[in-house]
């Protein structure tokens, strides 16, 4: 018995008779004998819901929890109950891509609101309906830059960009005629004075990240002008939670803003789903990858929303396309939209500030009380990197015994980082009591 297969035996017989065949196997007669699969797939037969749930429950129970100070691209923030409730509405999650606008206004309007919110946060003109994640958004942004600038074949990126972003970029571009060149860092941030040496007529864009992989903030004063004089574009990746307090990409003069909206209402969920966001200046609209929702009118003159500018997209352009993106993280983008509506304009500012306050409290206490220091003297938001007197992986293992995920050893992200660097993230969810216990635990672990 299968709960999702409604056919009764007599219905199957009737249907076969209407089709004019005797058996279901006759409908598979077009599969040549030699490639037919004759056995039974080698795993268990179907199970009851109770058995399945027990199995999943036991798998979930084998994952251990701890008080988390983990970040490096995925953060443990509050998720309001209203957000979870709306994200669980079947009208949203069991719907298809809104290709039929007359019966898809719900998703279309929510995405239009998402686009608006991304433009507001980044201080840029246009946003798409979302991309897969922040790392792949970087590849799409760089491709957008190469396709929008004349006679360019080089993308510069800062050494301080998340190592996974760099790896995704390399995989994306290594079979294309595009050169990726790393601009070095100095004292834990992009060496802005070095950027000039890398500039030439072939440079399509510079990609940077702030807060960067160490959590440090980078000062981009003058960078946008330098790039624009060279007819190159400026791409800034930012944790969007920081944008409630910190200078937005548009305010730094960026042409393209990217990042990941995971902090906005999405569970860390072992890394996904999250949402890549991309916003850009009006000028770049026609080369923007992915879906875009636009406002229009219906036949009665009523406001309506619709997927638009589809001439850019792969299903029209096929092999001439410059991106193959044919979906978005619609439901996850909708959840981030509901989150931003719920916390609201003032709430986002307060939350963002609270993250910064708590991270500074912990960093201040740790560096004052323990033989650890910040890996560089730089400003930070809700994450910072500590230089430890021991390998970070060892410390993490010890502190796990006390019920803490102490942070991300940077050499986990890339083996080239010194083994004593630990990235520590502090969100609004961490209480003073947890932080004080964390300090005690670290003290014990360092002995």
């Amino acid at each position, binding site marked *: 018995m299968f709960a999702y297969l409604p056919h009764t035996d007599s219905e199957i017989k009737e249907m076969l008779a209407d089709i004019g065949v005797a058996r279901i196997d006759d409908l598979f007669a077009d599969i040549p004998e030699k490639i037919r699969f004759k056995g039974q797939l080698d795993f268990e037969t179907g199970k009851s819901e109770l058995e399945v749930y027990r199995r999943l429950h036991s798998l979930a129970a084998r994952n251990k929890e701890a008080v988390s100070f983990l970040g490096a691209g995925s953060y443990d923030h509050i998720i309001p109950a209203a957000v979870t409730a*709306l994200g669980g509405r079947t009208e949203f999650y069991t719907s298809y891509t809104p290709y039929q606008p007359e019966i898809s206004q719900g998703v279309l309007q929510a995405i239009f609101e998402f686009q608006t919110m991304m433009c507001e946060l980044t201080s840029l003109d246009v946003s798409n309906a979302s991309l897969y994640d922040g790392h792949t958004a970087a590849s799409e942004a760089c491709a957008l830059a190469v396709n929008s600038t004349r006679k360019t074949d080089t993308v510069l990126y800062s050494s301080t960009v998340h190592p996974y972003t760099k790896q995704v970029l390399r995989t994306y571009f290594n079979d294309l005629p595009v050169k990726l060149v790393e601009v070095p860092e100095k004292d834990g941030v992009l060496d802005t004075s070095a950027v000039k040496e890398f500039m030439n007529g072939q440079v399509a864009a510079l990609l940077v990240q702030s807060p960067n992989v160490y959590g440090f903030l980078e000062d981009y004063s003058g960078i946008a002008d330098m790039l624009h004089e060279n007819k190159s574009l400026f791409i800034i990746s930012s944790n969007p939670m920081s944008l409630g307090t910190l200078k937005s990409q548009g305010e730094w003069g960026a042409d393209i803003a990217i990042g990941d909206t995971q902090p906005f209402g999405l569970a860390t969920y072992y890394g996904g789903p999250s949402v890549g966001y991309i916003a850009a200046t009006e000028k770049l609209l026609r080369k923007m990858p992915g879906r875009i929702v636009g406002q*229009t009118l219906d036949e009665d003159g009523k406001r309506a929303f619709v997927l638009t500018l589809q001439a850019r997209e792969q299903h029209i352009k096929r092999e001439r396309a410059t991106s193959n993106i044919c979906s978005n993280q619609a439901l996850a983008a909708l959840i981030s939209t509901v989150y931003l509506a719920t916390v609201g304009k003032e709430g986002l500012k307060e939350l963002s500030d609270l993250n910064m306050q708590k991270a500074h409290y912990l960093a201040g206490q740790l560096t004052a009380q323990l033989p650890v220091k910040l890996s560089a003297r730089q400003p930070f938001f809700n994450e910072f990197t500590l230089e430890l007197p021991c390998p970070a992986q060892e410390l993490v*293992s010890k502190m796990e015994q006390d019920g803490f995920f102490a942070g991300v050893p940077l050499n986990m992200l890339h083996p080239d980082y010194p083994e004593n660097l630990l990235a520590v993230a502090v969100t609004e969810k961490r209480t003073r009591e947890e932080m004080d216990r964390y300090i005690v635990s670290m003290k014990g672990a360092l002995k």
Partner: protein
Amino acid sequence: MSMDLKDKLIFERSRTGRRGFRIPEADIPQKKKEDLVDRRFLRGGETALPEVSEVDVIRHYTRLSQKNYCVDMGFYPLGSCTMKYNPKINEAAASLEGFARLHPLQPQQTAQGILELMYELTDKLCEVTGMDWGTLQPFAGAHGEFTGMKFFRSYFDKRGENQRTKVLVPDSAHGTNPASAHIAGFDVVEVKSDQNGLVSLDELKQHLDENLAGIMLTNPNTLGLFEKEIAEAADLVHEAGGLLYYDGANLNAIMGKCRPGDMGFDVVHLNLHKTFSTPHGGGGPGSGAVMVKSKLEPFLPAPTVRKKDGRYYLDCDIPDTMGRISGFYGNVAVLVKAYTYILTMGSDGLKKASELAVLNANYIKEKLKHRYHLPYDKICKHEFVFSAEDMKEKYDVSATDVAKGLLEYGVHAPTIYFPLIVHEAMMIEPTETESKESLDHFIEVMEGIADLAENNPEKLHEFPLSTPVRRVDQVLAAKKPVLRWKKE
């Protein structure tokens, strides 16, 4: 008259000072933000994010949800999209805190449950497809195609066959196939289908040379027809030194009946959001898992999940890896749902699902083929394609008009204008989860629309009338793009 509340944007409901969520009190000494970071790092401008209460939020998005059609409301005969029912146990399993709270960088010994699930899922998907191992990282079908093309590239680079830059794609292929091959650095050559809607071996032979990297195929193809000569085609491509890529969009037709690996394919991408029942979410998140034959395993994207001495781990030590294709490990919540589905259905249930999907498609086809033109009249697999070309000539009723008529009668439209090789195409895939009554209702509505086309086509041009909005002005949307709300 002011705008109806239910038609407003969330921004238009905003009232200065209204709040929707209480932030926890700070339990640490607070400092001025200027004392934490230098003023030059601080945001200057305000945002126009809404100021609304929780009640406003709930009502606003609940009302929006009611303007949306969905699988839980009714039938979705969308060809190549496999809009089957999304079981509720999948959602319950995926909501377990033990999964949801996992951080991608927490120590792997604390994430054994999810790693075991990912390992088991990979293993079962290999069994269904006849492949050897794979990756669950791709976020969507098109992302899986891109990953598949990277397997091709890495394989030929390793063999020193850099000249193999040509990828063959049939004219009936999904639109993303050529785009994915192109952005992975390949030159795309289109292969014409024969008069039976299938890839012809004679046509294929003309493209076999030292520049061939391989071919991307869907089987059954987008006409719902099984490519009978697939084994011969695979031999030809392999003899020419090329590889075969299987687009898994149509796997729902053949589970337990035949396997891409046994047909000769080297790389397979699956759409877990189609065949394995995970919800489409209004356009995502999905999952485009990719399975490969062992000769391509050395090129897997990093990391891949492995098992050693009873422990599961993420293996980053893949010397010839194509690199990294996703930030972390893909849409993991989607993987939990697909795994739950496979456990529920089991080996027998998956086979039965494919059988009934094919039964349902043939049933609709036979019942309606006297009213709608069926360009390829033979046994189909899980889907088939009608053409409205004659209807358009005779009555000026297009595939779009038929689609909008269906919306008026409360049924979702089929996929229209695809595949490109059929004019005024209407591609219909009922899936196995629709009952006979549901199919009969659809058939009745389609017959009614065919009657209207003959007797009163004007009416069809006006449809839909009773949907939340009527036909929308696409030209206006593209000509004068309004892509965001702005404060007046």
